[in-house]
């Protein structure tokens, strides 16, 4: 369909809003309150346009074929001028010190609407600053556009902000005659309301600080950035989130450290909030650069000779590396024949390979599909903790598309189940992962293959009473109660889930997505799960999405031939080994952090995205080691072009990669991996795996899962001063009650071999369960978990008597 905006023909889709179409066609319509992918709030009224001669608002008017839209007439700008005037009433003129000065939308629109006089006045009200934990709220700067509320509800899913009464005077009635209707309405609303946390005083949220990012003025501000730099002093360096596999586009804002110290420092992380949302890790864990003083030649030469003498048997590494580094490691492996050890990536790789072999294709959903879908099933992931950014997208889909969904997890995330009535949390037991997939196959698949036929028969019969209405000979209605036998899924029963609910949830749903997380990759029955999942992708309407557990797990899985560790000398690259070439504190030779490197990641959307170096690293890069060992590249990014084509990479040079979103929201970040090529070149192993009965037959109450608190995703995030926590056992209220534990007391958790002494902390947002984090280097939970996600651990409070 075509519409005409300011004389320009624009193509539009049914259901688009006028503002979206205008933006996609690079036509500027001013709007303060509207955010992409969020519901229009109509708070600012700046987007008023004339449609076929009638005044309406571009943000909530849907397009009709042949519409004539005008957005730039003098009358409209006069109205906008009046509105901007009302925003400026009593707005403090502290632009000189305000942190938003220079990137303030109020400033911009005040200029744009050419406000140069102030014709109105009203009594001043109490405007004291409010302390919201990591954030500060300044009511005097707030123009109540409600963007923070909108983003928190529609994108993040915390719904932690609301409007409260401001207690200001109503504007004088005389002004009603002298000013325009819209401006008067905006002003009246503005005098009435103010933003506040849901519970009144402080925020009880995951602290993603997206509200700070979307705030057009400086009303909500990060305390750790406050008054430290003006916006225009900072250099924006585009990068990708190095902490989780969303790898969202973000910017490091960099400036010299001080007058005396000219070295660069990251002052904050910012984002294109219309198109990307950042999680807490990306937003705050940026001060993690290594304090490497220079090149330690002695240790470097020792490392080189270790390779040359063929002493190294294993290279242990994690997935917080770039594709180029992974490729260098793989090239070195081919040359020296050591084992590349990365257990997490190995599990994921195996899962992926089995999945691809049986489905004949790569997993076919991306986060965009999640955003578009209206029925989402999540299984095997403690989603808000594992991948906060994807949980935002799930929330966005469910809120915006009036979607429904199921969330299978043993631990109940109460915040998640508050998103919508139609988003049902199913508290299935541990070890029932296969049943979840089998149930989905049973319910949604059209034809099951021969060897899965047993799923079709997994029913039991139940007697229920049904009221039957009928008419007797005289035409009166009679109600009769009848016994009826119906078939019900025994799988659903095992999961503790009423399948009848599903019928209501599935009303008018068309786009299905299934999200699978860590639990499945690390499962002892992973092969069978992957097989079932492949069938789901093949036989049902579900699009399947796997969440790579770490930043570049997918890239590593594509590029490296991983194996288990054998005995012998181990080089730890960013990990502990007999020789550590690492960015940890305890290392033999310092390596660079991800924010000191150029390179690329493969994110969960199967997209190769570039990231730039924010800071300079003075030590040795992995590339230097590779050069010393006979490979030849001046910079690490020379490998970007060489990434293997048979694994699906395209041979595009790093400098030719783009990294941005356009006005219409189209993704121009790097390129999509050619997954068909990857699957084609995969060594097919079509053997159908066996369903192994879970050996985890332990008491459900004792189970502890391996998960981090929201945002503190790894040892790297914990290095930053914003987190810097000691590991604790995070437990739900009922878990504490069941084990007779007090909050914040010291406990011993143990199995028959090992024990850890740790503090126990209450997590208000979960039910029936506890989790042990991995971010603390000093406490090693892997000695219990190995590669499993959950484990039964005994727990006992320690008394000091």
């Amino acid at each position, binding site marked *: 369909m075509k519409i005409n905006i300011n004389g320009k023909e624009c193509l539009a889709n049914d259901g688009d809003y006028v503002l979206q179409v205008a933006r996609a066609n690079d036509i500027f319509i001013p709007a303060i309150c509207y955010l992409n992918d969020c519901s229009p709030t109509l708070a600012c009224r700046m987007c008023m346009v004339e449609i076929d001669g009638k005044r309406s608002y571009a943000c909530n008017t849907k397009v009709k074929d042949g519409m004539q839209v005008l957005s730039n007439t003098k009358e409209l700008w006069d109205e906008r001028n009046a509105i901007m005037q009302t925003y400026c*009433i*009593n707005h403090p003129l502290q*632009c*000189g*010190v305000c942190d938003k*000065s220079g990137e303030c939308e109020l400033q911009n629109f005040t200029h744009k609407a050419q406000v140069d006089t*102030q014709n*109105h*006045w*009203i*009594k*001043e009200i109490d405007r004291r*600053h409010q302390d919201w934990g990591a954030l500060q709220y300044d009511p005097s700067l707030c123009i109540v556009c409600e963007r923070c509320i909108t983003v928190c509800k529609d994108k993040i899913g915390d719904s932690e902000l609301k409007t409260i009464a401001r207690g200001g005077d109503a504007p004088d009635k005389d002004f009603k005659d002298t000013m325009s209707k819209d401006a008067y309405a905006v002003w009246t609303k503005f005098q009435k309301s103010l933003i506040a946390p849901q519970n009144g005083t402080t925020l009880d949220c995951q602290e993603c600080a997206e509200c700070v990012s979307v705030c057009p003025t400086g009303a909500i501000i990060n*305390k750790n950035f*406050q*008054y*430290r*730099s*003006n916006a*225009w*002093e900072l250099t924006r360096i585009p990068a990708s989130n190095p902490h989780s596999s969303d790898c969202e586009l973000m910017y490091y804002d960099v400036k*010299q450290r*001080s*007058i005396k110290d000219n070295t660069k420092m990251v002052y904050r992380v910012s984002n294109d909030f219309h198109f990307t949302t950042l999680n807490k890790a990306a937003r705050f864990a940026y001060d993690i650069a290594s304090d490497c003083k220079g090149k330690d030649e002695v240790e470097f030469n020792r490392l080189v000779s270790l390779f040359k003498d063929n002493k190294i048997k294993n290279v242990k590494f994690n997935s917080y590396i770039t594709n180029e580094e992974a490729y260098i490691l793989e090239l070195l492996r081919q040359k020296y024949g050591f084992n590349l050890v990365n257990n997490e990536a190995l599990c994921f790789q195996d899962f992926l390979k089995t999945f691809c072999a049986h489905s004949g294709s790569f997993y076919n959903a991306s986060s965009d599909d999640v955003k578009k879908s209206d029925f989402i099933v999540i299984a095997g992931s403690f989603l808000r903790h594992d991948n906060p950014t994807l949980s935002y997208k799930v929330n966005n889909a469910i809120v915006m598309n009036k979607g429904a969904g199921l969330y299978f997890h043993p631990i109940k995330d109460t915040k998640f189940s508050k998103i919508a009535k139609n988003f049902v949390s199913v508290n299935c037991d541990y070890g029932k992962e296969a049943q979840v997939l089998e149930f989905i196959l049973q319910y949604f698949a059209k034809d099951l293959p021969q060897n899965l036929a047993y799923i079709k028969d997994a029913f039991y019969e139940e007697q229920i009473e049904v009221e039957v209405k009928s008419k007797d000979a005289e035409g009166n209605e009679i109600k009769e109660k009848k016994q009826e036998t119906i078939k019900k899924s025994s799988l659903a029963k095992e999961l503790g889930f009423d399948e009848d609910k599903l019928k209501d949830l599935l009303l008018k749903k068309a786009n299905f997505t299934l999200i699978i997380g860590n639990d499945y990759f690390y499962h002892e029955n992973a092969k069978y799960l992957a097989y079932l999942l492949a069938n789901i992708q093949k036989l049902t309407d579900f699009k399947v999405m796997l969440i790579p557990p770490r930043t570049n797990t997918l890239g590593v899985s594509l590029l490296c031939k991983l194996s288990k560790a054998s005995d012998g000398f181990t080089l730890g690259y960013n990990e502990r080994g007999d020789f550590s070439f690492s960015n940890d504190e305890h290392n033999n030779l310092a390596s660079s952090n991800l924010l000191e490197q150029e390179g690329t990641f493969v994110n969960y959307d199967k997209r190769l995205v570039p990231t730039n170096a924010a800071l300079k690293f003075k030590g040795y890069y992995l590339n230097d080691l590779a050069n010393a060992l006979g490979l030849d590249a001046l910079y690490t990014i020379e490998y970007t072009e060489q990434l293997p084509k048979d694994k699906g990479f395209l041979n595009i040079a790093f400098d030719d990669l783009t990294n941005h979103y356009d006005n219409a929201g189209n993704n121009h970040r790097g390129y999509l991996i050619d997954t068909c090529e990857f699957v084609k070149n995969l060594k097919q192993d079509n053997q159908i795996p066996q369903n192994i009965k879970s050996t985890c037959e332990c008491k459900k109450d004792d189970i502890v899962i391996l998960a981090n608190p929201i945002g503190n995703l790894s040892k790297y995030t914990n290095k930053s001063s914003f987190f810097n926590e000691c590991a604790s056992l995070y437990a739900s209220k009922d878990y504490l009650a069941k084990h007779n534990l007090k909050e914040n007391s010291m406990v011993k958790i143990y199995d028959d071999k090992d024990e850890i002494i740790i503090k126990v902390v209450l997590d208000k947002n979960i039910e029936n369960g506890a989790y042990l984090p991995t971010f603390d280097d000093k406490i090693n939970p892997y000695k219990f978990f190995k590669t499993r996600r959950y484990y039964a651990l005994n727990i006992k409070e320690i008394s000091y008597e």
Partner: protein
Amino acid sequence: MKKYYVVDEKRKLILTPYEKFIRSVKRCLNTDLISGLAFIINETLKRGNSATIKYPMEKIKLDNRYRAVHRLQRFIESENERCIGCGLCEKICISNCIRMETKLGDDGRKLVSNYSINLGRCIYCGFCAEVCPELAIVHGVEYENAAEQRSYFAHKKDILTPIDNLINQVEFEGAGSLRADADDFVKVTPNYYDVMKARESEASISNSSDTKEDKTNKEAKDV
């Protein structure tokens, strides 16, 4: 005193040798030459009449508009620094010689923890003083900036008026300072609402109890 002479454009040109001779005789016999000589001798011998400034014992007094090394001013009343750390001087500086460090102060306000100007780079264009909304950075009179090295930094402690010397702080009148009639351009702010309300209520009180006694009392108070 007659200052200007009208040029006689129709003056007759002297061209013949006789006329030239007569003119030079006239000039020789005139006393102008001697009086000129006397004036010169007189001026030369006069005491304290030297145009030469004996630098460095003597220094020239610069005009207000001269742009010498910067000063950071304080408020005379509160002794606070005037600089609010807005960074406009840093932004506008075309030779990129200004840097500042700011942070959140203990009082919750923006604190300028340090400030520096690289006088080796500064071209003394005066934009910083002109753009400063608080008249905090101004040009001083210190124009001797020879240094041993190219980059030569003035830090906040060097250019900020010391508290004990606050009494000698001079208001800057050069570029960027307020014009003399600046007060006339100030508009009433929305906060004036309170003042107006207060006046209204005052007026209504005085109207309702408009006795002579009150009036005289009020007048006495006003005086």
